């Protein structure tokens, strides 16, 4: 931790970066921290309780400005950075990515390619509780599964915290806000809710990096991360990507290749 604070302070002091995004101790839980001065860097922490996906801030123009920014990245944040870069959302020159290895060593990445080889060693894992729900869902019939999700999603009040916390939900205009035509009913009600969640899942197909930030953000405890997570596993073999690794093939729903095996479009 000391090394992280020292390094962040030095980067800010000598002007290498204008901002360091990291974590600090919060009131209820660790939370994102924006360090603008060397002094702010003294508040940085980095441990297993730090679960916010900081990559969500990298696409916010009002926060990023034009100068170089450093980010202290956990494995999910590293995955998000790669996926964002595949989607042309990041300027590699303007981002300095730092992580703390399992051995407690500070590691600064020379570029996104180095991040890619680094995270190749990390498997994407579900928590025990998530695995449990997935297994339960897999044991269900189609109807039971539909019933399960209808019930869970009926609780949703459309605060969109799941969307706001997701590093890959960076559209400035979301389909739920389109009103000419209005694709999705914007109010909270069972049908309108399932429309919203199917759409969210579809838009994440092949892009979700499995960080779970959406589920962590949901104030109503809806295990919303499992929808996108399962989608990722189901689409993986078809579209040639590995869960937890950036998908260079783009969004499963918006790509088309001449050698696609489906021929209805030709």
């Amino acid at each position, binding site marked *: 931790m000391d090394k992280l604070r020292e390094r962040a302070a030095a980067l800010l002091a000598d002007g290498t970066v204008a901002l360091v995004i990291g974590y600090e101790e919060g009131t209820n839980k660790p939370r994102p921290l924006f360090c603008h001065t060397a002094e702010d860097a003294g508040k940085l922490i980095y441990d297993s309780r730090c679960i916010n996906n900081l990559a969500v801030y990298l696409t916010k123009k009002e926060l990023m400005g034009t100068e170089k920014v450093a980010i202290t990245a956990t494995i999910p944040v590293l995955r998000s950075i790669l996926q964002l870069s595949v989607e042309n959302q990041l300027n590699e020159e303007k981002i300095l990515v730092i992580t703390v290895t399992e051995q407690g060593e500070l590691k600064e990445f020379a570029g996104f390619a180095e991040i890619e080889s680094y995270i190749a060693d990390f498997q994407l894992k579900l928590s025990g509780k998530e695995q449990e729900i997935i297994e339960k869902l897999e044991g269900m019939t189609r109807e039971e599964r539909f019933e399960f999700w209808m019930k869970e999603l009926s609780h949703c009040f459309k605060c*969109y915290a799941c969307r706001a916390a997701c590093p890959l939900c960076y559209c400035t205009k979301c389909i739920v806000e389109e009103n000419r035509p209005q694709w999705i009913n914007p109010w909270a009600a069972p049908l309108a809710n399932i429309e919203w969640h199917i759409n969210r899942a579809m838009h994440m197909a092949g892009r979700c990096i499995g960080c779970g930030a959406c589920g962590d953000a949901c104030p*109503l405890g809806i295990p919303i991360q499992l929808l996108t997570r399962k989608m990722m596993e189901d689409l993986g073999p078809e579209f040639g990507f590995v869960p937890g690794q950036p998908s260079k093939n783009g969004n499963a729903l918006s790509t088309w290749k001449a050698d696609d095996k489906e021929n209805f479009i030709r």
Partner: protein
Amino acid sequence: MEIKYISKEGLNEWFSQIVKSGKRVYAPVRERGQVEFKRVQALSEVAEDYIQTTQSIKSSVFPRAEVLFSFEKENGKVAVEDFNPDAVKETVLWKVHPCDAAGFKPLTAIFNWDYKDKLYNTHLEKTTLVTFSCAKADNSCFCTSVNGGPGNTAGSDVQLTMMPEGGAIVEILTPKGEALIQLAVSAFEKDKGEDKSKYLVDVPKVFDVEEIKARLATAFDSPVWKEQSERCLGCGACAFVCPTCACFDIQEDAHGSKGKRIRCWDACGFSLFTLHTSGHNPRAVQSQRWRQRILHKFSYMPDRLSVLGCTGCGRCSRACPVDMNILEHLISIAKK
């Protein structure tokens, strides 16, 4: 106001009489790892041992989505079916915390500001609030700093203060409360003269709301908004769980020649909330939206409606994915 005592058995009896009367009873229920208000039939379904429900009781008077009117066009004629107050059922909200009951005052002020909202007022008229004073709190609670308290009776029709043996001190506060007692008069006993305050949790007062108001009066251009809001994601979680937030949107659900006009929740923290058709957004960045949230609750509402827009329930702090703690922020504003 009248004070009575009710024993554990009496409480059961009273509760079952309320259910039998045909009124809908909503109470905190533990389900899916959360505690939320749900329709209940028996006292045994009601959750125990929790600090607070994730959501407030706001949706009972201001539903997430509600039909204002519906319409149908036929042969050039339009038939409009208005909201029908008679269809709204009598409701009892059981085991509400004082900070939620206090939330109805700002909501009532908002929905009657320049126009008396028929929907809201109908729900309110048909709702009876049975509050339970608080024996527990956590570090997000700050009711005492915003003129409330763990035994505050404002907004309650009846307030119970639970005693260790399972009985309760009953404060009957309004005619609606009295009518509810009448459903099982024999269940109630004479006041035992116990001091309610002994059973209340201590929530220390940590800031002075007048001081905050005075500081906010000149804080519009303060850098504090940017400092505080950098990590805010602009989701609506804080507004949706808040007992006093009342932003709404009006939408149309039309299919062919018929449709409905629907009022649904919105939040001033959303970037599209103030986006004009021209493309201009007067609150273009999150710090301006955060400022709006604080100023609305602690400056604009007190000025215009003579009521604070916050009851210190702490829900927004518990729900926020990035730990934006309103209490911490208010204390820092008070100190500036």
